[in-house]
């Protein structure tokens, strides 16, 4: 993780070339949504192409947000989102962390938990 220039293609590749030109993800993935590589992803991501393999490595055994995946792989956010959405659809990544609840009690409980977490810092 964190090898900045491990991809020798570097900036020579136009951002959306790695998604074969697709700019719309299969499903919306929030920037803070957390992803974890599934056992299938550990086994099979190497057949999914270089970039997806790197993403699977980043999220193997430690949950990472879409933002972190983009940062560690040096992919632009929109490109990472398309690839991650593909990988969720293919069962290579598991999506954790649902969107914010609209239910008052659940939302309040989440805020309480965040507040105690911050106080413990």
């Amino acid at each position, binding site marked *: 993780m964190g090898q900045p220039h491990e991809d020798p293609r570097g900036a020579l590749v136009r951002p959306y070339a790695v998604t074969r030109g697709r700019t719309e993800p299969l499903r919306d993935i*929030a*920037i803070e949504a957390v992803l974890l590589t599934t056992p299938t992803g550990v086994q099979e991501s190497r057949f999914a192409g270089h970039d997806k393999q790197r993403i699977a490595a980043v999220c193997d055994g430690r*949950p990472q947000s879409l933002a*972190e995946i983009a940062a560690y792989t040096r992919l632009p956010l929109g490109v990472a989102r398309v690839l991650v959405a593909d990988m969720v659809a293919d069962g290579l990544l598991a999506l954790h962390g649902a969107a*914010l609840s609209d239910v008052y009690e659940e939302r309040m409980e989440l805020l309480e*938990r965040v*507040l105690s*977490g911050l106080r413990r*810092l």
Partner: protein
Amino acid sequence: MVGAVSEIEPLTTEAVMTAAGVGIDDPSKVPGKGTTTVAMDFGRITMAEDLILYLFGTPGQTRFWFMWDELIRGALGAAVLVDTRRITDAFAPLDYFENRGMPYLVALNCFDGAPRYDLDEVREALAIPQHVPLVLCDARQRDSVKHVLITVVEHSMMMLRAEHNRGEAAPVG
């Protein structure tokens, strides 16, 4: 600010700004330049196995609004960090959060050498509504940033409770 409390070295994500997301920096006036890349810093605080707090920092200029639109979707709240040397830069972000009903506060960044202002003067100069907290902060200091974040969450809770008590059936966010 993010770096002062994050458990990881702040990371940078790049987003490609297309013409649709552009404010005053209109790329259509630059021949052959349809997109610009902007960077956004963020950090992380793992609170529990099932709870991670992400902190995103973006610049305040209006041309970055497309990033803010992305960020406020799942956000608990926002802090507008005001540089006392460029106080009027805060107008745009303040309008943005006010208009979208996102709980936010204003943190006046006070560090050595920066001009000092009276909080009431700043509130008046920026027309900050009375219900919006205004706090002093040193964005480099962990305890100070921690205090700002705690105040953001407390404010979010207060706003949520007030909305709930008004009996509004409309979902939040």
